[in-house]
């Protein structure tokens, strides 16, 4: 029996409901207003009343309005057809919504997440008589460049006998493709899709592995110095305008993974539109298809209802986990996790919970930890590996990292890419602070070479700080050259123009190649007569390197610019530091 209720209070996007019958926590209900039904979720139960967050604008709701409960938790549909989609936080397909309602997001319209009319080419794998359990493959359908596996729904917890399986052919997601029987002889119809409650992690794997393989982003500073691993987690905190979104956008384009899930969570709608319009035109070098074919966008931007913003990151991670079950590597990019935390804060305030720091709820930390815990590289039951990597931006109030969301996030992630206002003001993009940021994952290059360069970077910035106190005149020429080297490394390797067609994405092979020049320059010993001469030399060298960075990998121009670079260097290079020579011999 589904329960019903009546509204007894409205406060912002939270309503209080007098309930007749039983309800459960996080159950979905609909408020009947005029001729519309507004989707809501139970977030607190008190005796025979409950409080619900409403996923829509609450204008017009009256005391006494009816509520229908559904007996279901907030869930998403999992099945073929998720790729290329643009959903809101509750998995409503936005393009279809636009067809139904026009320019505006009219409330109370809910569409099916998966298209019911598309025919999929089903190939059975399981045979009648097989014993199967959750997540076992029953068959496959091709979805874009992927083989989408039709699995035993994850909420079927026992062992089952396959009673019937449909022959190869075309089916819709709603068609029954297999019939299973449990030990008691009950039959269960399996369609090509099933529902899964978003707040529960999918755990159909045999073991979790340690993330060690690199997740290549083609951003030099990240891959070389501050790497991310497949199945790892990382965060990008930074003040507004420092470049969080652009960094995620280029990563969503260039990352070497199978599928990218973009969770546009509570930020600008315009930024999603760029992705929406651009991706269908861009080619994924790995598959030759459009980038959109490997992308799912969950879009719950800042002016869309706050409660569905809270749900949106879970919708995104659930879809990521689902594809991971097919042995794929998924990257989930959430921009911004602070907006999600703020959605929790708004609701917590309406519930009049005891506030923690900056009025965030006391459970903020555990909820953030729980979300990032859903990342991971796993060994599936059939021995294949799949991974979910999560990267989240953080938008700290006032750009100050000493705030609850940044701090809670830093405790749980494996890499920290902190953006600095100083660097973005100086147009040093990506504005990741190379000194403060860290990563626990292995670099794509030889770690010794990376450490060697990093040391010079640190030493150079120390000297720079020192020079602010004692002036250039109080700095030894030798130190001054180290400072110039570190400034050079910053300018030609750490900085990378995301809007330059060539420089925007640098493959690992090129990073390795270029980095050997870097080691050569870092290790070079010069005999300059004056600081002025040294500065002029490095200006010229920088010019040559920037030109070199700007040309197509291994084009004729590439080799000619490379020659200019080497010639410029050799004009002043006297010898090479022996450690650098060793590194170059071993290969970076």
């Amino acid at each position: 029996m589904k329960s019903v209720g009546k509204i007894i209070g409205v406060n912002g996007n939270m309503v209080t409901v007098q309930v007749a019958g039983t309800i459960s926590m996080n159950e979905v209900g609909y408020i009947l207003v005029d001729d519309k039904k507004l989707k809501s979720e139970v977030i607190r139960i008190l005796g025979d009343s409950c409080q619900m967050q409403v996923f829509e604008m609450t204008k017009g709701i009256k005391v006494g309005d009816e509520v229908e409960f559904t007996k279901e938790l907030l869930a998403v549909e999992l099945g073929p057809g998720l790729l290329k989609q643009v959903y809101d936080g509750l998995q409503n397909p936005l393009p279809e919504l636009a067809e139904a309602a026009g320019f505006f997001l009219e409330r109370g319209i809910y569409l099916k997440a998966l298209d019911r009319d598309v025919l999929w080419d089903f190939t059975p794998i399981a045979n009648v008589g097989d014993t199967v359990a959750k997540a076992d493959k029953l068959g496959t359908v091709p979805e874009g460049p992927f083989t989408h596996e039709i699995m035993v729904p994850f909420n079927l917890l026992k062992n089952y006998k396959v009673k019937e399986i449909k022959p190869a052919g075309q089916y819709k997601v709603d068609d029954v493709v297999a019939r299973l029987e449990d030990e008691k002889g009950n039959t269960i119809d399996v369609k090509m899709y099933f529902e899964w409650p978003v707040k529960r992690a999918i755990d159909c794997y045999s073991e979790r592995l340690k993330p060690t393989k690199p997740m290549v982003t083609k951003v030099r500073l990240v891959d070389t110095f501050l790497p991310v691993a497949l199945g790892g987690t990382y965060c990008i905190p930074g003040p507004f305008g420092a470049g969080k979104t652009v960094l995620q956008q280029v990563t969503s384009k260039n990352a070497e993974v199978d599928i990218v899930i973009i969770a546009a969570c509570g930020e600008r709608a315009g930024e999603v539109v760029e992705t929406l319009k651009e991706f269908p035109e861009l080619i994924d070098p790995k598959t030759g298809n459009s980038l959109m074919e490997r992308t799912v966008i969950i879009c719950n931007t800042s002016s869309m209802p706050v409660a569905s913003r809270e749900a949106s990151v879970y919708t995104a991670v659930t879809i990521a986990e689902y594809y991971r079950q097919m042995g794929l590597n998924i990257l989930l990019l959430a921009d911004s996790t602070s907006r999600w935390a703020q959605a929790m804060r708004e609701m917590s305030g309406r519930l009049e919970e005891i506030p923690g720091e900056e009025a965030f709820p006391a459970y903020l930390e555990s909820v953030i930890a729980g979300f990032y815990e859903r990342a991971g590289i796993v060994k599936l039951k059939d021995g294949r590996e799949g991974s979910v990597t999560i990267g989240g931006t953080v938008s700290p109030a006032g750009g100050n990292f000493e705030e609850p969301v940044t701090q809670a996030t830093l405790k749980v992630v494996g890499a920290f890419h902190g953006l600095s206002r100083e660097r973005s003001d100086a147009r040093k993009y990506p504005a990741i602070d190379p000194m403060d940021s860290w990563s626990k994952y292995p670099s794509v290059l030889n770690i010794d070479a990376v450490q060697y360069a990093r040391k010079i970077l640190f030493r150079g910035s120390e000297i720079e700080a020192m020079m602010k106190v004692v002036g250039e005149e109080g700095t030894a020429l030798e130190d001054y050259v180290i400072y110039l080297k570190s400034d050079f490394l910053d300018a030609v390797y750490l900085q990378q123009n995301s809007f330059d067609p060539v420089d925007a994405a640098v493959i690992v092979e090129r990073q390795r190649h270029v980095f050997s020049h870097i080691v050569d320059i870092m290790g070079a010993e010069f005999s300059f007569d004056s600081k002025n001469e040294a500065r002029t030399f490095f200006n010229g060298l920088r010019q040559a390197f920037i030109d070199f960075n700007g040309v197509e990998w291994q084009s004729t121009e590439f080799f000619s610019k490379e020659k200019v670079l080497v010639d410029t260097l050799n004009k002043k290079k006297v010898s090479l530091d022996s450690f650098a020579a060793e590194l170059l011999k071993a290969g970076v």
Partner: protein
Amino acid sequence: MRKVYSKIETIAGNVISVKATDVQYGELARVSTAYGDTLAEVIKLDGELVSMQVFAGGRGISTGDEVRFLGNPMRVSFSDSLQGRIFDGSGKPRDNGPELTDNLITIGGPSVNPAKRIIPRNMIRTGIPMIDLFNTLVESQKLPIFSVSGEPYNQLLSRIAMQAEVDLIILGGMGLKYDDYLFFKEELENGGAMSRTIMFVHTASDPVVESLMVPDISLAVAEKFALQGKKVLVLLTDMTNFADAMKEIAITQEQVPSNRGYPGDLYSQLASRYEKAVDFEGSGSITILGVTTMPGDDVTHPVPDNTGYITEGQYYLKNGRIEPFGSLSRLKQQVNDKTRDDHRAIMDGMIKLYAAYKSSLEKKSMGFNMSAWDEKLLKYGSQFEKGMMDLSVNIPLEKALDLGWEIMASCFEKDETGLKTDLINRYWPKGK
């Protein structure tokens, strides 16, 4: 006939409550007081208890005053006869024109479906190099001027408005000083733009709650005109007053503040207004230029901070100039690849050099020797400030780009600029 309630249960700040039934969340009520009628908006329902924020404020309201619910949310009349008119924050005429009551539209409507948005593509030219060259303004952008009080932000706002090629200007004033209100009126009249202007002005002496309606009214009207194909420019000044009005209500309501007294939903509240900026495919557009004054020149103050996270950049006005640091147009890259092919390089290169100038300046102020390189930067910095940053400069983008090359060539050797050789070969002024 709607029921009249004549017993007000509580009055706290600008919020009153009555016991009533059949009231909608967000509905309007008319409160009759000894000082005349005022509107009030329902902000909370708790059983029979209905809380409302009173537009004219709580002062002077008696527990015996009558409350009559109107059965509809806040609405505004929409028609072409709005053009050239001036209204107050609750939509009543401020000029001597007639009250408009036909074709009422609800304010604060739903947001645009992101799937229906398009990528902004038209540059708005202002003749100000710090904008056109370094932080290009784009049609459908939402962008505030961050300013310390006392800076000429309203002058800048009106200058951009007069120079921009738009069909309609809507001015939403919140806590506007009366002088500033008269300034806008005069500027628009003198510039011959009043006939294509609509003003919703709440002045500093009007009741605080009324300012809360101004952005929604302005944007609801803008949206309708944009859907009719008009390019609308909405000026919102000053959004900090709007946020402060929200803070006042939140505190009265005993909400837990998140940061310096501001409510936890400040971000969402501001976003739902700014996100109304849009370019409707096959129709018109809304561009929003706002003003956010920064109490104590503090960018990390909750209002500018939350705003910066929402808007598509900001112009940071300081000492009568638009500062290169802190200023940003996030949409510039949508258009600055279609202007001139040296635009992007000049934009980044000159700012990098200006940053280097700033650190030389710092060294100098600490009494260190200036190297040859420092001297070059100092020369560059002062030319940059004079040629590019001075607000009296009024030149088209192309002239500003040429000027950029001139300035660099008069200060540096080619390879000191950090620009690509190929551009230098083409644009470096001859004979330098």
